[in-house]
């Protein structure tokens, strides 16, 4: 594996808890969410622009709390009511729903009332903005029953729609916003990503000028930054194979960074 192959791998866009970078902003959000778990909330709203780390935060808290609390993480949105019921059945009854069975929604609500006080179930719902209105309404009713508590993660662009619905507004116990990184956080993020893979040389080669450019192009968005870095190392790979004279191995190539920014659409030509 070449030098730049490994560097590229550092910035693959995937939820990998081993590569979680603790930054001041995300630490605060994590602690807020962790504290909320001990409060009697019905709904918690986690929102932020795409690429600010909502999914990573949910999966991290799930990973940390799964042995302490009855907690479930639904990462892909369920667009179909039947699929949603099947998942609910699985969570509430702790068994898969038998084939060919249909369950009425009211049965779930009644069941929740029966087990109230005996169980407290937290459901982490990612990409909640994609759920149909009907399912969102059912989530609200279920949360009222006092057994199921939901943390719903939505994109910032759509959170207002959800919050605006009065029935949701009164039940949302708290909101946590995840923001883009500050320049300093972005620098730490990039360095840490590289250091996790022992890419000391590349981390050292990155100068403030490069970081400033990355920040300018990505506005501190983690996903955009990873994409930009990934593409930069792809370009490195190409030149390493076809024309190594195009770059200096001791200096981070601003040219490649700019080319990557063009390729990813971060800058327009």
């Amino acid at each position, binding site marked *: 594996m070449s030098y730049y192959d490994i560097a590229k791998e550092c910035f693959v866009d995937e939820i990998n808890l081993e590569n979680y970078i*603790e*930054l*001041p902003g995300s*630490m605060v959000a994590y602690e807020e969410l962790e504290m909320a778990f001990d409060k009697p909330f019905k709904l918690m709203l986690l929102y932020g622009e795409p690429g600010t780390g909502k999914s990573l935060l949910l999966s991290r808290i799930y990973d940390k709390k799964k042995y302490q609390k009855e907690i479930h993480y639904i990462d892909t949105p369920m667009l179909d009511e039947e699929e949603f019921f099947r998942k609910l059945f699985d969570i509430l009854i702790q068994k898969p729903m038998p084939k060919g069975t249909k369950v009425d929604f009211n049965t779930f609500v009644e069941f929740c009332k029966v087990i109230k006080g005996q169980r407290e179930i937290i459901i982490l719902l990612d990409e909640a903005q994609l759920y149909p209105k009907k399912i969102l309404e059912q989530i609200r009713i279920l949360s009222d029953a006092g057994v199921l508590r939901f943390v719903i993660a939505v994109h910032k662009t759509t959170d207002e729609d959800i919050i605006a619905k009065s029935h949701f507004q009164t039940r949302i116990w708290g909101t946590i916003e995840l923001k883009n990184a500050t320049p*300093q*956080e972005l*620098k*730490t993020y990039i*360095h*840490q990503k590289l*250091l996790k893979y022992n890419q*000391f040389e590349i*981390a*050292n080669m990155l100068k*403030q000028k490069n970081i400033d450019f990355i920040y300018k192009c990505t506005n501190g968005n983690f996903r955009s930054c990873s994409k930009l870095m990934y*593409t930069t190392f*792809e*370009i490195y790979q*190409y*030149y390493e194979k*076809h024309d190594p004279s195009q770059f200096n191995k001791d200096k981070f190539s601003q*040219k490649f960074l*700019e*080319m990557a920014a*063009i*390729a990813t659409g971060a*800058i327009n*030509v």
Partner: protein
Amino acid sequence: MYDIPELEKKWKKYKRNKIKKPIVVSTISIILLAGVGLIATTYLNKNSSDNSSVVKKSNKNTETTSQNSNSNTNLNSNNNQAVKENISKKSNEASIVIEKIDSKGNPLINTKPSSDNEEANIDLSKAVIIKPNVPDDEIRVIGFDNKNNNNSKSDILIPKSSTEEINKREEIANLEDKFKESQDPNDSLEVAKYYYKIKNYKKAETWAVNTNNLDGDIEESWLIFAKARAKQGKRVDAIKVLQTFYDETNSPKAKKLLDKLRKGLPF
């Protein structure tokens, strides 16, 4: 994978545009400034030529009347003075010269001495040093080493904190000299600590290295080295070095600092 040759073409175009932009902006700015300058010059020229015609007219008038009346002569003189104080346009020169004249008609020159001259003219013997409004134990008096001399005005009073700094600096200089012979890591550590405290991170790093070279087990010296390195923007280096130290010693302080460096927190 992207079409890299195509991408490179786009990049070249991007660079060209990037260079073009400031050139275009500065060209426009220069043109605008030149335009403003031209308008201003035209305006001034117009004003001065108006003044000249007034001068000529006024001179003509006074010439005809000066032989008869003293008061008219005075008027002529006043007119001349007023005009000279404004703008006198020399017919054979394109530039406009503005000069002030005194009541006798002599051109005024800047009589204020230059700053260099001013300095040269300060009479130090007459300087009085005012005692700052702080308690006596807060200040130290330095000056003539003559306790019988009651003329305290010739002493220089400086805040005690400054003298402490001076003392410390002297102490460190002595320690540095001493270290050359003693090669005592405690001395070099003391110097490293001092330089770190006064934010001279380069020197702090050098002295921490000196200490580490003599005794690699002094935790404080490694911490100073890492912190000084990080303060100079070499955070990655600092982490590398500190990690090695931590791997060998399991030092909790090193771990704490390592965590802070990794998280980008202040230390």
